[in-house]
């Protein structure tokens, strides 16, 4: 039974990363209509920024500041990408955005691989989150519990921002009719850039959270992004709550599959994706692209 709970916990942790990443993808797709294939590379950059902040000759900036600094740094990098490249794809077919961001992902990963190889760099768990708790039915490493809770809080805060605030109303309206929203006096191009920065920042945040668990590797994003895209397709492109729920749910389903039928654990998400595409091509909660 302990093994079942352990797999559930692993599923929840993976689900946290799926949710944060697919949330960022959903935000970006909703606003920019771009399927951001560079998301995995930007997630990896988040982890690397945290690593650089800690391991350099000048400063030793630890995990807690990195949780804020890395998403900002990578978010700014993302905004530069949007201003210099992605904005020119407005109005074109999704395929162009997909190809451009796929190319960007390969370049970013290639650069990091060139300098750091493919093996993982260690990133220590902060002292405050070391150790674990015996819950009676299972042993809970504190850091992993923190990742689940913190991710959930960030996801819900993002959902609140988009669904319940005036800024979110601007975002949702601009998703529907950017021309009219701009004609109301709102600087939509700037809002698009900031939205891309927000989505990318969420990916970088997931990268920092992941660093102590999975180590820091140039291909850490590439391994994850395919599953995350399956999550987004199942949840529905552009759906905020759909991405969050599906992210956590698929992590748990993957964990349960590891316990009950380990052979299928790597494919269960994709099987579900195929089934959803057959029954509801726009995803469980998504809108038509």
């Amino acid at each position, binding site marked *: 039974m302990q093994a079942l709970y352990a797999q559930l916990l692993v599923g929840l942790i993976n689900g946290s990363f799926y949710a944060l990443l697919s949330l960022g993808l959903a935000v970006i797709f909703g606003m920019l209509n771009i399927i951001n294939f560079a998301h995995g590379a930007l997630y990896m950059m988040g982890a690397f920024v945290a690593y650089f902040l800690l391991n350099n000759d000048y400063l030793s900036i630890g995990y807690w500041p990195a949780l804020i600094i890395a998403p900002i740094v990578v978010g700014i990098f993302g905004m530069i990408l949007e201003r210099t490249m992605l904005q020119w794809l407005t109005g074109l077919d999704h395929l162009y955005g997909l190809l451009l961001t796929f190319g960007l992902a390969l370049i970013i990963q290639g650069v990091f691989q060139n300098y750091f190889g493919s093996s993982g760099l260690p990133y220590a768990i902060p002292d405050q989150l070391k150790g674990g708790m015996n819950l009676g039915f299972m042993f809970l490493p504190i850091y992993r519990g923190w990742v689940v809770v913190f991710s959930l809080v960030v996801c819900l805060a993002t959902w609140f921002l988009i669904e319940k605030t005036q800024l979110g*109303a601007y975002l*949702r309206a601009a998703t529907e009719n950017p021309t*009219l929203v*701009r*004609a*109301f*006096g*709102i*600087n939509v191009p700037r809002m698009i850039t900031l939205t891309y920065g927000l989505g990318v920042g969420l990916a970088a945040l997931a990268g920092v959270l992941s660093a102590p668990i999975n180590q820091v590797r140039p291909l850490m994003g590439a391994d994850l992004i395919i599953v995350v895209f399956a999550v987004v397709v199942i949840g529905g492109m552009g759906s905020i709550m759909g991405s969050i729920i599906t992210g956590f749910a698929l992590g748990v389903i993957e964990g349960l599959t590891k316990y009950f039928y380990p052979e299928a654990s790597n494919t269960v998400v994709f099987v579900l994706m195929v089934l959803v595409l057959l029954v509801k091509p726009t995803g469980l909660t998504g809108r038509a692209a």
Partner: protein
Amino acid sequence: MPDTAIAEAPAKAATTGGNILQVRNLEAWYGESHILHGINFDVNAGEVVTLLGRNGAGKTTTLKSIMGIIGKRAGSIRFNNEEIIRATSDRIARMGIAFCPEERGIFASLDVRENLLLPPIVRAGGLSLDQIFELFPNLKERLSSQGTKLSGGEQQMLAIARILRTGASFLMLDEPTEGLAPVIIQQIGHTIARLKKEGFTILLVEQNFRFASTVADRYYVVEHGKIIDGFSNAELAANMDKLHAYLGV
């Protein structure tokens, strides 16, 4: 009447404030299609000016060109003596021009309250929510409904109401009566008359000139992307035959 005469017409027709909008030799394109071929007209502060014309004449394109939401335009548009032909639409809106599109532009992902509060306040002097609910009592009862779940008339009221909050003093209404029941058309007519009384300047696009005649001070007739005639409301009766011919009614 030739275009040059039309351009000068407001000076003769002006019964209200000074010149607020001057459009000169306005040309506009949708992709490769040349839609406007040198539009000239003026609007004075406090007036209701109506652009009349058949479908596809260029009336809506004229409004969109003023609002800056047409890909390519040329010529001159001066608002409060400031050239806006190269300004972006968000800057034009912040200068005090508000646009209510023909398709109403109600956002499905927003409820009525969110739709109403969406356009930011660009300057002081806009209507308060209480004043808006006084004009459109239906909206108050439907605040939490999804915007697109309202009836056509209610959606039109919402589309007009939300630009009244912004403080913009120059309103452009594109076919506000299209597809609405007579009783709603009457209500919109009363609203426009009241807005005029409160000092708003309104540029109206209408095909229904019977409705327009109840609110407008002056008319311009648009055909093939040009203004081909213009007259004041007092001259409407004398121009009725011409107008029927222009509009094909």
